[in-house]
């Protein structure tokens, strides 16, 4: 017994001294998903005593700052998790390692091209491995719909005009003219306007053949933006609360019946299920035959500074295999990107509308422009000017002119022109 104990101590000491420790930066936050990741990492550590993984938990709100400062401080985690399209940015900046030599054909065939394309740069370098996706839906209050006699089509997909019609019907005002229930809420931070732009064949950012970008808002995009703004300004079925960045407050408003419909990712089902206070359903919006809706795939990547890229990729392969990606996604109320993982019967269950959300994955796509530095353009120029139109500080023509002028200036400074 004493010999066994000594051997175990030597093994532990040896592992600590000669083994590898990978730092894994993870953004999962929903409790069940966090537990699932803890379990998987424990399983990995048990089976790989020479390659131990240490989880560094981050938050979505501060992930960009953390990663940027980590990369620049040359103290980046070996494996990191973030939105799939950001790997393109980090790759171009030299912070993410290319994975072309690691990735297998089997993996590439198992992930839809439309999703993994986000992680490539224009030279064909792959920087991230997508592992989960979602579809942005419109959650609606079934009781409010029933009270107003609203019956949805069987596929629960409604056109833009029908959306206005439903929102008008469900918007209620008191005798003093104060709105007590708003028909619709599409917060700017949820980017429903980008879905509308994509559904109307619009574009805001255009890349030329030399890989240079410019701000160019075509008629389709303008119409889509006008439609979004009309819900607030003209039809008065959507409040200025869309500007709010307080997710909790907005969801509480939906639960309290202040909003008949809200747009959020399908992962938000967990919050509604947990609250149990609202009888909810999901629907999608379409523009005639164009049913594209927003999706925000997430991915894992390896820091270019990592000294253990081989081991890091083995860990990514482990986390993103069909079984494990299904497990993490299910607990996060998301969907795995791997086609083999989607075969998991849990994703086809009618409980909590898994089957409905899964059937809509075919329409889910990244509706945001695939430009590195997109978030800089969006939050510095695009959204603040939309906010000014919503608040009545400016009109849409002037806002669009400012977006084009300031946007191109921002793109120049980023080296995109």
């Amino acid at each position, binding site marked *: 017994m004493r010999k066994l104990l000594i051997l175990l101590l030597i093994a532990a000491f040896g592992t600590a001294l000669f083994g590898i420790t990978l730092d894994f930066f993870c953004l999962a936050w929903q409790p069940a998903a966090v537990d699932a990741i803890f379990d998987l990492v424990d399983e990995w550590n048990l089976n790989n005593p020479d390659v131990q993984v240490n989880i560094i938990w981050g938050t979505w709100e501060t992930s*960009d*700052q953390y990663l*940027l*400062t980590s990369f*620049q401080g040359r103290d980046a985690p070996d494996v990191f998790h973030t939105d799939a399209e950001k790997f393109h*940015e980090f790759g*171009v*900046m030299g912070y993410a390692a290319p994975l072309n030599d690691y990735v297998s054909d089997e993996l590439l065939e198992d992930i839809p091209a439309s999703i993994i394309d986000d992680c490539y740069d224009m030279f064909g370098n792959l920087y991230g491995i997508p592992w989960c996706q979602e579809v942005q839906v419109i959650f609606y209050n079934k009781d409010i719909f029933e009270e107003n006699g609203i019956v949805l089509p069987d596929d629960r997909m409604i056109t833009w005009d029908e959306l206005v019609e439903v929102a008008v019907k469900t918007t209620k005002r*008191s005798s*003093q003219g*104060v709105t007590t229930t708003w028909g619709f809420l599409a917060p700017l931070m949820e980017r429903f306007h980008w879905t509308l732009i994509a559904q109307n064949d619009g574009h805001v950012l255009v890349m030329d053949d030399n890989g240079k970008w410019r701000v160019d808002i075509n008629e389709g995009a303008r119409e889509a933006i006008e439609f979004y703004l009309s819900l607030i300004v003209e039809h008065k079925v959507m*409040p*200025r*609360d869309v*500007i*709010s*960045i*307080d997710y909790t*407050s907005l969801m*509480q*408003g939906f639960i*309290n019946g*202040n909003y008949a419909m809200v747009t959020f990712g399908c992962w938000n089902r967990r919050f509604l299920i947990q609250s149990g206070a609202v009888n909810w359903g999901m629907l999608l919006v379409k523009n005639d035959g164009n049913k594209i809706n927003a999706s925000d795939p997430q991915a894992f990547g390896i820091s270019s500074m990592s000294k253990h890229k081989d081991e890091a990729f083995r860990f990514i392969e482990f986390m993103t295999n069909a079984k494990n990606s299904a497990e993490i996604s299910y607990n996060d109320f998301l969907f795995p990107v791997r086609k083999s993982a989607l075969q998991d019967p849990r994703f086809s269950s009618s409980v909590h509308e898994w089957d409905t959300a899964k059937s809509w994955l075919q329409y889910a796509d990244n509706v945001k422009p695939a430009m*590195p*530095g997109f*978030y*800089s353009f969006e*939050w*510095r120029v695009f959204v*603040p*000017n939309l*906010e*000014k139109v*919503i*608040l009545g*500080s400016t009109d849409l023509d002037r806002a669009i002119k400012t977006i084009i002028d*300031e946007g191109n200036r*921002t793109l120049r*400074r*980023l*080296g*995109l022109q």
Partner: protein
Amino acid sequence: MIIIRTKGSTASALPYILPILLFIAFVSVYPFVNGILKSFYTDMVFGAGRYFSGLENFREMFSDSLFWVGLRNNVIWAATCVGLELVLGMLIALLLNLPYIKLRSVHRALILLPWATTPVVAALIWRYIFGVMGPLNTLLRAVGFSNPPGWLITPGYSLFACIVANVWIGLPFVIVILLAGLQSLPLDIYEAASIDGAGVLRRFFYLTLPLMKSLILILVTLTSIWTFNMFDIVFSMTNGGPGNSSLLLSLYAYQNAFAYFQQGYGSAIGIVCLFILLLPVTFYIREVRSET
């Protein structure tokens, strides 16, 4: 006792203070110098990369409308916060200084509680209070205001909400300092003034304020410097919105450095803030020197 300072005594002390001087140099001086140097570089992160651009960042800044919005908001922010803290702080300190106030130390401890709260936590609490469906609007609806404003999503109100949160945090410090100042004032002057028929207001304006002038000036200078550079309140409550109406220079510098990949530009904004603050700093040093 006469103390004779010699060159030798300073030199012999150097080995003992050198480690801490090196530490201070590393923690304070190095980032400061690094920041100044960075301000002369432009980051074309998706193009040419980082290159030396001289004063380009500063030229860019003066034609950047967001910089001027931030500067305007900063002046309003600092002036309003400091003004409110001073006026409210003096009122509360005067109340606490009344002779019949019991358990003054308990009051002082309770008053310090907001100051002990982490600014981000305080900001999140106030964000909840000022929320569209928050307790403040619920209360306003209950007392008859049928359509209270969206405090955090309406230009003007958003900065005001942040000011309220910042004053709530900063007020305790001002109260404690002013109270200490009030309690150090000589009582015989007030007794003489009372005998001569001076009322409360006259005693305050002609005795209290002049006697506390230096203390108040130093307090205003320090709180102005701290308030001007505040970041966490606005970041947590509004993130500079809506429509950049509550954007401060500290937040704008942060956004440029960490969200827009423009570290050089963010550093340049920081340098400009430094020069703006040199004015009160110079004033503070002069006041302290004249005190000693």
